[in-house]
C-alpha cells in the first residue's frame, strides 16, 4: 500500500516535470520560471504527504494525492494562460494546504463535538447566503461577489455552502420524525431563494443537490427526493417565467448556434475549443484559449480540452470521480451520523460542482458560472475545496471523538 502510494507520488512528480518542461519550451528563450513552479509544487506535495504519513499513518493519503493531481493540471494550464494568475494560484494553493494541514493536525479532538453548534451554523448559513444580495457587486451577470477594499473580493456563497452542510449535518443527524425536517427545509429554501436573487444558478443547483442527498441519507426516504425534485422543477418553472436571465440561459442552451455572435458567444467558443482539441489536443501553447471567456476559471475545462485533449479532459473527470468515491467512502467508515453526513455532504458538493460546470461548458446542461474544484483559478474556491477536503481527510483517519452519538 505504502509502496504503491510512493509510486503514485513519483508519477505525479513525473507528470509535473514533463508538464513544466513543455511550458518551459514555450518561452523563448527557455523559461526558468517553469522550473521554479515544478520545484515548488513538488515540494508542497512531498511535504504534505510526509506530514500526513508521519502524523496519521492510517489516514487516506490518496484523497490528498488525487486533489493534488487536479491542482497540478490546473496550475499547468494557468501557467500557460497567464504567468501572474499562476503565481497567485500557487500562493492560494500554499495557503489552502497550510489550512488543510492545520485542520487535520490541530483539530485533534474529533469533529463530533462541533455538532452542538447547530444554531451557529444556521446563522452562518443565512449570513453568507444573504450577504451578496445586499452588499454584493455584479460580476459576469451574477451578483455574488462582495468586495473588500478595492482589490480584494470573495464569494460569500462559497462559505455559505460549507455552513449549510455543517448545519444540515447537525440538524439531520437525529431525525426521528417528520416535524424535525421543517426547520432544515426552510433553511434550504431560504438559501436557494437568495441564490436565485443573486442570479447564481450554479450555486443554487449545487445547494439543491447537496441538500437532497443529505436529506435522503438521513431519512432513507425516496419520497422526499421525489418531492424535492418536484418542488425544484416547480421553482425552476416559476423562475423561468419571472426572470429574463433564466429564460435566456435556457434558450442559449437549447439553440447555441442561433446566437453565436451574441448571447451564446461564450458557450460556442467553449464548444469550438473542445471540438478543435480533438483526442490529443493541439498541444500546450498551440491552441487559442484567448477566444474563450473566463478561461482561467469557469471555462478552464474547455481550454484544457483544447490544448491537452479530450483524453486529459476525461482524466480530469475520472480523477474527480475517484476523489468523490474515496471521500464518500470515508463517510461509510465514520463513526457517527454527524461526521457521516458532513463527509457525504462535502463530497457531494465537490462532485456536483465538477459535474455542473463541465456539463455546462460542453453544452450538456444549461451553463452556470461556477468553478471547477481544485482546477479553476480562484482563492475562495480553492480554500473552500481544501477546507472540505481537510474535513474529509480527518474523517478518513478514523475521527476519534466522543461516541455518545452511536
Amino acid at each position, binding site marked *: 500500500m505504502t509502496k504503491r502510494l510512493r509510486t503514485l507520488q513519483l508519477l505525479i512528480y513525473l507528470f509535473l516535470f514533463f508538464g513544466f518542461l513543455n511550458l518551459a519550451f514555450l518561452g523563448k528563450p527557455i523559461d526558468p520560471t517553469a522550473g521554479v513552479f515544478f520545484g515548488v509544487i513538488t515540494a508542497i506535495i512531498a511535504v504534505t504527504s510526509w506530514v500526513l504519513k508521519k502524523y496519521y499513518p492510517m489516514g487516506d493519503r490518496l484523497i490528498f494525492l488525487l486533489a493534488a493531481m487536479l491542482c497540478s493540471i490546473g496550475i499547468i494550464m494557468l501557467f500557460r494562460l497567464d504567468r501572474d494568475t499562476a503565481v497567485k494560484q500557487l500562493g492560494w494553493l500554499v495557503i489552502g494546504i497550510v489550512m488543510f494541514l492545520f485542520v487535520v493536525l490541530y483539530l485533534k479532538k474529533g469533529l463530533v463535538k462541533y455538532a452542538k453548534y447547530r444554531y451557529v451554523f444556521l446563522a452562518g448559513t443565512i449570513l453568507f447566503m444573504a450577504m451578496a444580495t445586499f452588499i454584493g457587486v455584479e460580476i459576469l451577470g451574477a451578483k455574488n461577489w462582495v468586495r473588500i477594499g478595492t482589490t480584494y473580493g470573495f464569494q460569500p456563497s462559497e462559505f455559505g455552502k460549507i455552513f449549510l452542510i455543517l448545519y444540515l449535518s447537525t440538524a439531520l443527524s437525529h*431525525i426521528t420524525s417528520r416535524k424535525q425536517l421543517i426547520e432544515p427545509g426552510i433553511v434550504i429554501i431560504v438559501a436557494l431563494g437568495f441564490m436565485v436573487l443573486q442570479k447564481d444558478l450554479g450555486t443554487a443547483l449545487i445547494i439543491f443537490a447537496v441538500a437532497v*442527498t443529505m436529506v*435522503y*441519507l*438521513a431519512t*432513507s426516504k425516496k419520497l422526499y427526493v421525489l418531492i424535492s425534485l418536484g418542488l425544484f422543477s416547480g421553482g425552476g418553472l416559476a423562475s423561468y417565467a419571472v426572470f429574463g436571465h433564466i429564460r435566456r440561459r435556457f434558450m442559449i442552451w437549447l439553440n447555441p*448556434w442561433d446566437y*453565436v*455572435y451574441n448571447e451564446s458567444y461564450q458557450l*460556442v467558443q467553449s*464548444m*469550438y*475549443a*473542445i*471540438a*478543435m*482539441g*480533438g*483526442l490529443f489536443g493541439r498541444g500546450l501553447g498551440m*491552441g*487559442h484559449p484567448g*477566444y474563450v471567456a473566463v478561461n482561467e476559471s469557469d471555462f478552464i475545462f474547455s481550454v484544457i*480540452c483544447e490544448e491537452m485533449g*479530450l483524453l486529459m*479532459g*476525461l482524466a480530469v*473527470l*475520472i480523477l*474527480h*470521480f475517484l476523489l*468523490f*468515491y474515496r471521500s*464518500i*467512502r470515508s*463517510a*461509510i467508515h465514520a463513526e457517527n*451520523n454527524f461526521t*457521516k*453526513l458532513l463527509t*457525504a455532504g462535502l463530497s*457531494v458538493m465537490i*462532485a456536483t460542482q465538477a*459535474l455542473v460546470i*463541465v*456539463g455546462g461548458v*460542453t*453544452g*450538456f446542461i444549461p451553463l452556470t458560472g461556477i468553478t471547477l474544484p481544485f482546477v479553476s483559478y480562484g482563492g475562495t474556491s480553492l480554500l473552500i475545496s481544501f477546507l472540505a477536503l481537510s474535513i474529509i481527510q480527518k474523517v478518513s483517519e478514523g475521527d476519534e471523538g466522543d461516541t455518545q452519538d452511536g
Partner: protein
Amino acid sequence: MDNLTVNIKRVMAIFLVVFVILISYLAYFTLFRGPEISTRPDNKRMWDIRNKVVRGTIFDRNGKELSVSEKTKNGTYRRTYRGGPATAQVLGYYDPQYGISGLENLYDSYLSSNISASLAAWVGNGLKAVNKKGDDVYTSLDFGLQQTAYDALGSSRGSVVVIKVDTGEILAMVSKPSYDPNALESNWKKLSADEQRPLLNRSVSGLYPPGSTFKVVTGISALENITGMVEETFNDQGKLVLGKDYTLSNDKGKAMGKINFEQAMIKSSNVFFGNLGIRLEEKLFKTAGKFGFNRNIPADGIIIDNSWFPKYKASEKGNLAQAGIGQAEILATPVQMALVAQTVANGGTMMKPVLVNKVVNYDGKTVRELKPSALEQVTSEGYAAEISRYMREVVEKGTGTRAQVSGVQVCGKTGTAQHVESKTPHSWFIGFAPYKNPQIAVAVLVEEGGYGGTAAAKISAAVMNRYFKK
C-alpha cells in the same frame, strides 16, 4: 439511520452513473460532433489555422490564375479574385469576416492543406518551419468561355452553363447579377440585403419552371413508353380543352393542324405535348426522375439543389398536361437542364458534372485527379439520336433559329416559361453542338427574358461561337 451506510452506497452508485453519462457525452461531442462543429464559418480558430498557410491557387483549365493569395504590404495574405465578377459565385469567396463560399469552401481542405512539407524537408531546414503552401486546384472552367457567357448575358439576370458532353466537365458556369469579389468589404451590406441575390449561384441553386425545354424529357419519355410514337399524327387545333374552365393553348393560340411528333417538337406544340403529359402520366414522372429530378445529382466542386417534378394523380389532367410542357409546379436548375442536353448529346448517358480536374500539391505532385464518370444510362442511344435529330431541326428551321452558328450544326430546344402571370416569362435555351460528335452542351436561362427563341438562343449562339471559333 441504520441505513446510512447503505444509502451512501446508493448515492455513490448514482454519481457513478452521472459521471459515466457526462464522460460519454463529452467523448461523443468531441469525436462525432466536433469535426462538423469545427468547420462552421464563425469558428475563428479555423481561420487562424488557415491563415498559417499560403492558400492554394485556383486555376482555369488553361492554367490561368483565377483566385490567388497575394502578400500585402503588412505581410499578411489577401485573396485576389482574378476571375472577377464572371466567376464570383462559382468559385466563391474566402474572407475571415464574411466566411467562405463556392469552390473555395468545397475545396477548402485542399486549398488550406498544411501538410506542405515533409518531415525530411522540415529537418533539412534546421527544424524551422518551412513556408507552407496549400494545394492548387485546377478547375475545368474555360475562363475565355466564362467571360463570353458573362458578357453575353449583358444586364439580364440569369445563368449560363456549358458542359463538355463526353466528360461532364463544366466549361462555364455564370450567374447574374454578379458582384465584384475583390470589393466584398465595401459592398457586403448591400450584397447580402439585395433582393436580386447576387451572391446566389443561380446555375446550381436557382429553381425555375423549365417550360418547353422540358419537352426534350417528355419526348424521350414518349419514345420509350408509347409504341408507334414517331408515326402518330395529331390534329392540333391550337387548344386543348381539359374541362369547363381549363384549356391549354399554343403560343398565341395558333392552330398547327395535322402534325406528327417531329413537327410538334420543332414548332413546340403545347397542345401535342400537353396531350402526351396526360397519356404518359406516371411514366413521365419516372423519366424525369431518371434525368435527375427530385434527387440529389452527384457532382464535384458544386452542390446542385434538387430539381422538382411533382407526382400528379391521373385525375389531375390539367397538371399532367402542364407537366408535359414543363410548367405546372415543375422547377429545374439551369445545370439540371444543361445535363438534359448533355445526356441527349451523349447518346443517353449522363455524366457526373465536375468543376475540378485535378489538385496539385506544393511540390507538383497530383494529389487528386478526377476521371470522367458516367452517372446513369438515362435512355437508349436510339431515342437520344431521334430527339437529337429533332433538336437539330429546331435550330435549323424551328423556334431556335437564332441559336445558329455559322459552320457548326447546332441542336437545341427553346423554352418560354411562365412563372408569375403578370410578369414577362423566363427565356430558356438548351442545346449542344455539333450535331455529329457533340462536344459541348449548353443551358441558358434569362430571367424574364421573354421568348426563349430570342434572348436565350442568342446568348447560346454567342457562347458556341466563342467555343468553336476561338
